[in-house]
């Protein structure tokens, strides 16, 4: 049993090493894609101002869609918040908190 385990681990290690040794295009492409660290800062803009990049039409539409989605989400959330506020106010008006006050707990502030 112990010998089988040793053989399996050994075979696994051998397979890994052999894979690394084989000149594989996958490894080569990964090595080629490794990021090159640039120590020098990017060229400073000379002359005119730097503006945010003009978005291609597709991305511009994407931004508009995002804004529309965001405001729609804000609207929906505000609607649900309004319902929750009404419910919380109703609970408050029923004297739920006064019941606590009657037990000797005064609301803090003002």
């Amino acid at each position: 049993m112990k010998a089988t385990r040793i053989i399996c681990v050994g075979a696994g290690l051998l397979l890994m090493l052999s894979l690394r040794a084989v000149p594989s295009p996958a490894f080569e492409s990964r090595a080629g894609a490794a990021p090159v660290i640039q120590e020098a800062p990017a060229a400073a803009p000379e002359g005119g101002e730097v503006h945010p990049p003009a978005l291609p039409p597709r991305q511009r539409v994407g931004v508009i869609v995002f804004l529309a989605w965001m405001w729609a989400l804000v609207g929906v959330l505000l609607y649900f918040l309004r319902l929750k506020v009404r419910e919380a106010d109703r609970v408050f008006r029923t004297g739920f908190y006064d019941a606590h006050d009657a037990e000797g707990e005064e609301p803090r502030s003002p």
Partner: protein
Amino acid sequence: MGTIRGWLDDRLGIGEVSGFLTKKAVPLHSHTIWYYTGSSILLFLGIQVVTGVMLALYYKPTIEGANASVARIITEVPLGWLIRSVHSWSASAMIALVLVHMLSIAFIKAYRKPREATWLTGVLLLAASMAFGFTGYLLPWDSLSLAATKVGTDFPKAVPLVGPLAAKVLRGGEDVTGDTISRFFITHVCILPLLIFAILGLHLFLVQRHGMSLPLERDAREEKPGWLPFWPNFIMRETGVWLVLFGAVITLAIFAAPSLGPAADIMAPAPAGIKPEWYFLFMFQTLKLFPSRIAGLNGEQVAVMSMLAGLALVFVLPFIDNRPTERKGRVVSWLVLAAFVYAIAMTVWSLL
């Protein structure tokens, strides 16, 4: 879920905090709307921290790298232009709200006894917010920010005795250089955040300690006001306000993203049309109005000392107007209104 909550409650005392929030009451009256300004400032402070950390990942506080790294953030980093724009708009919104918050406090005389210390910490928070704006303005290191910082760091020189030394400490030398960038950067991302969170902690503690103030007419009538539980009634209303403000800042940031000027050249002459951020414009315009000599004294010195005296008056306002709460204090209200109108007029004049 209940087990996790119980475990956290045993160690952190969450139950006590939620108990505190449910017992906290918010006065309900015609001026309750002003209470939302305080919490909205916290929203923008949170946005500043998040976007600021994201920008700091790419920013290089050196004379060679500052402008180039901001240009890279705008043009190369994915959504970098948006993060920078949100940071810029959120900073303006935060300072505008701090000013509105302070004006509301001044008009309803909420600085009077026993809330003097709350006012003092509030003024310090305003100063810290403006210091954030001032130090952040130089960081893009474009020709306009360099010139405006030169003018801004020249201000302290007009103060007798300590002025020149203060200017030297601010700049890290005789002039605005690369040392000033690193000095401003460390102040912007390290010293000021520590300071603002410490003062904010004290400010919030004092607000809890003394409770939210009531308008004068309520106090005068000794009428028991209506109230609203902070949790959940008030916090849900606040969440609604936060959502709208957040949406407004994102929309502004998308449609009016700030650009970046050409890299600053220390040896180049100051460009035309130097302007600081909008919240310093009234001081900038005031300084321009003063003649070079006033009754034999240096005009700039008189202007700077007058402005410092004005700021000192704002700081010690609770000790000047320390009358009982039932007095309306119309003179103070008119003076505050006059100062507000003056600041608006000077800002508009400077923009024209």
